[in-house]
């Protein structure tokens, strides 16, 4: 379940963003994930827990391993919200251009 607040604070950390980028290449074990980072495996596990809690990744049980992968719904949810913001600014201002074109200077003076 996606929690936008949790998702955004999860994304605020560079290590967690790097973990997500790595997971974008496919399912990975904690050992493999920890390899490129100069931090301990327990520290990576804590980051994984945050990402899991935020709904951005999911884990499955495979023997003694618990490999991680991206949770498409979580990433899409964040991405959708982001796309809304991006699009909102551009669309809004294009629309404002049109509104301004219809505003008459006469009416402006009347408001003073």
């Amino acid at each position, binding site marked *: 379940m996606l929690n*936008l*607040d949790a998702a*955004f*604070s999860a*994304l*605020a950390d560079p290590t967690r*963003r790097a973990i*997500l*980028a790595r997971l*974008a*290449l496919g399912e990975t074990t904690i050992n493999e994930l920890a390899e490129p980072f100069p931090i301990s495996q327990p520290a990576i596990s804590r980051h994984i827990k945050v990402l899991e809690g935020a709904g951005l990744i999911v884990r499955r049980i495979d023997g003694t391993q618990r490999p991680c992968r*991206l949770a*498409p719904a979580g*990433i*899409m949810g*964040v*991405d959708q*919200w*982001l*796309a*809304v*913001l*991006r*699009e*909102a*600014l*551009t*669309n*809004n*201002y294009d*629309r*404002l*251009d*049109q*509104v*301004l*074109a219809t*505003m008459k*200077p006469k009416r*402006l003076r009347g*408001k003073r």
Partner: protein
Amino acid sequence: MSKLTLKTEGDTHVVVTRRFAAPPEAVYRAHTEPALIKKWLLGPDGWSMPACISEARPGGKIRYEWVNGKGGGFYLTGEYLALEPFRRTVHVERMYLPDATPDNRVETRFDPDDAGTLLTLRMTLPDGETRTAMLATGMESGMEASYARLEGMIGSKSP
């Protein structure tokens, strides 16, 4: 040509600029009068703003409500802190998604620019982490590219 610029400043600021072919009075009014705000501050196509409160005085309330006509909706509340008619406004705002996002303090400037207006939005977030989260919104081109990549990869893996 892209008219919109978006950049970060220091640890907690985001600055947006956009030029308009209308005088500062008109752009200012379009940002503070509910009847005008409802015409353009709508986000993606298909969304509308059924309720808009904008009490353009220091301490005045702001409340924007958006719906997409398909059961989706969210809202924003805020307060005006300072207004210099046709030149500048300062307000705080927060989105409810449904939980409130941290307060975003926004200074909006309406500067004359030839026959038009240079609009400058200077946002101040409570801390660097909040801003990073906001920029993770894809406002920063680098992040946008990573997200596009992520989305592409996820898309190709979807059933």
